[in-house]
């Protein structure tokens, strides 16, 4: 078995004038969960659809499970998943939806019951999908993807609409699969989901990769973060902070006694030590925006719907 589930080099895909993917490189080893994030219209769905075989690159090389892919619908067996929501027929029951997929792809009948159990839908297997909640549909979509025991699982926003319990179950299923050696690539708009599930992440903005690597490295990309401080002596603490090197005191209006400073991690370490030395107790010290989200915003520009010229180029990401 090859150790790389996906190898992509310079993938480009345009729809008329719109360049949906622009020179995308991607490497995903087996047994890992890879996150794909980016603002709306970044090209996530286009890329994931390509991995499922829905479209093929205009330019560039794509290798899936060791097979070069050059045409539509030519991805090898062992790839499963969905893009833009699971494909389900509301008039059919959950079981019939899965049976149909199993019959069409030639999977054994027992795989249906197995998949239903893995996503926790065995109890409602004979209910029509018409009455399913968004979360149940997502889980059923995941079950459909699990039928063939995939070696590459492609999921477009799988935790959309899931309640905390459902999310935990789905995350558990995905983690188990990865532990068994399946490569998983999933897109999400929620950095906390990505943080909880993925070991590596690729950040797309208007069709380009602006970051690709381990999560810890992405957090470091966030640059200077804003931190909210709550202390035992706000007035004194403020003056200590304003005097500290490489720390900026922000005027940001806070409702209570807290205040906000901006600085890099080492400067924040020093500030903490100084406050303690000055006899001020630190009650709370937390980034205003979580680091992953801050990194996301820093790399893609503050507002997701920005024009391409304002999005950071590859150099910014490095």
């Amino acid at each position, binding site marked *: 078995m090859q150790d790389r589930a996906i190898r992509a080099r310079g993938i480009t895909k345009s729809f008329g004038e719109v360049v949906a993917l622009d020179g995308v490189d991607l490497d995903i080893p087996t047994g890992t969960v890879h996150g794909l994030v980016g603002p709306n219209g970044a090209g996530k769905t286009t890329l994931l659809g390509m991995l499922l*075989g829905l479209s093929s690159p205009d330019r560039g090389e794509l290798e899936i499970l060791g097979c070069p892919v050059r045409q539509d619908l030519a991805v*090898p*067996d*062992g790839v499963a998943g969905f893009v*833009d929501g699971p494909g*389900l027929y509301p*008039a*059919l029951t959950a079981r019939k939806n899965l049976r149909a997929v199993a019959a069409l792809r030639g999977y054994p009948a027992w795989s249906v019951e197995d998949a239903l159990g893995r996503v926790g839908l065995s109890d409602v297997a004979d209910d029509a999908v018409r009455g399913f909640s968004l979360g149940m549909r997502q889980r059923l979509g995941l079950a459909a993807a699990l039928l063939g025991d995939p*070696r590459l699982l492609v999921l477009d926003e799988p935790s959309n609409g899931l309640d905390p319990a459902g999310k935990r179950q789905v995350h558990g299923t995905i983690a188990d699969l990865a532990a068994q050696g399946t490569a998983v690539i999933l897109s999400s708009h929620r950095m906390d989901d990505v943080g909880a599930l993925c070991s590596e992440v690729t950040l797309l903005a208007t069709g380009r990769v602006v970051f690709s690597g381990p999560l810890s490295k992405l957090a470091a990309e966030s640059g200077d973060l804003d931190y909210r401080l709550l202390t035992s002596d706000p007035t004194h603490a403020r003056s200590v902070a304003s005097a500290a090197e490489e720390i900026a005191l922000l005027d940001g209006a806070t409702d209570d006694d807290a205040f906000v400073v901006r600085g890099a991690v080492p400067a924040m370490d020093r500030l903490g030590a100084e406050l303690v030395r000055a006899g001020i107790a630190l009650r709370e010290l937390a980034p205003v925006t979580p680091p992953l989200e801050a990194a996301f915003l820093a790399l893609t520009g503050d507002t997701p719907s920005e024009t391409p010229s304002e999005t950071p180029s590859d150099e910014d990401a490095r």
Partner: protein
Amino acid sequence: MSAPAPARPTTSGAAPLPASFARTLRFELVKLIAQWRIRVILLCCLLAPGVFVAATGQQTSLPADTVFGRWMALSGWAGPLVVLAFAGVWALPLLTSLVAGDVFAIEDRLGTWRHLVVTVRSPRRIFAAKALASLIVVLTLMIAIALSATLGGLLGVGSHPLVGLDGHMFGAGDVAGRVLLAWLVVVLPTLAYAAIGLLGSVTMGRSPIGLLLPALLALLVQVVQMLPLPAVVRLALPSNTFLAWRGLFTSPAQTGPIVVGLVVSLAWVVLATALAYRLFVRRDFTDLTNDGSARRIAVGGLLPLAALTAVSVAAVAVLTPVTGSGITRATLQDSLSTSFSRLYVLQTAQLHRPAVTEAAMQTASTCTKGGLAATSTTSTTSAADAADPTQTGPGNDWRCIVSWHTPGTTFVGQATFQLDVTPDGRYVADGDGPKEVNGSFPIHTAQGDAPNPLWQFDGLVDLLAPHR
């Protein structure tokens, strides 16, 4: 990977196989049958025609406007033909709308195209499976209607002989075969509508116009049928086949319009399906916004079909002897004479009078259109009359005098009929005296009271009859 994977049908890296056609077809059928709409329609098709036919058979007021409607109380075989005449106008186009017109569009509405394409891995197979599945469902619905109407007629009225559209009495066994044949004849034009439904469904996506395309076409055709179009255009439209089956109920059968209708319908089926196929396999399945555009449906669908119509008109004009409206004074007179003689023989038998034969009667008719006084003595038309443009074509102002010889006497009987001739060649003859011949009086028969067969009767002019 540690987990066993017996489920995987092919080894790692092997080229993926598309799902088998049989399984794809099965899935399409499962999806269609799972829809409530289809189930309700099937139930209606199974019940409504039978109930209608059985109930009408017990009534005194019969739907005489429809061919064979006036016979519904006398022969159970009239029922399925009345239903067929109704169905050809609305029900069958509407059914195809609801089945074939939706079979592609539903995937757009549900957003399931990507799932389906990735699972089946062959747009061609998806197209073939969807087309065949809708064909199977449409045929099932048709069979349900035909069976229901036939059972309703046979159980409600019984299997009795049926008077055809030229006065010929078809025996029960003969008529059963012809009823079956008539329903078989309309399979092809129904499939033409179904193919247009497929085309609409493929081109229009989520837009409801696709769904309605066959119904809209049926409406258009209804309007067109009412216009005083030349017979060549009439015959070149697929809708003509929904009328042409009536030619099976004359002796000899009027097969010309049936053959033309079947060929035209087949051409529509093939072209519309091919267009739908071409548009479908070129489609971008990653595009979620497939709502169709006016331009696409015009260029991809309507234009080629309009071209086909033009070609059909030209072919019918060249290959058949049709001219003008197809309804001339001569053809009308011939048709009326034949019908009259046969129905007169029937009446004579029903009234237990001395038997007469068609041949001995030497019946002749003289028809005039538009209130011209009929010259009662001439039984043949002069060449000048035949060429008179006012003495041709459909209309409700035809007046005919029929004269016949009573065997064994020198007496020449005469009776007047008012004819309402529709552009499709069908006419209703209404007796206008003398009362003893074609007045409204009941005749006691073995099956109960029947109306005088010569009082009002249906006839059919063969639009493709060679002209004299």
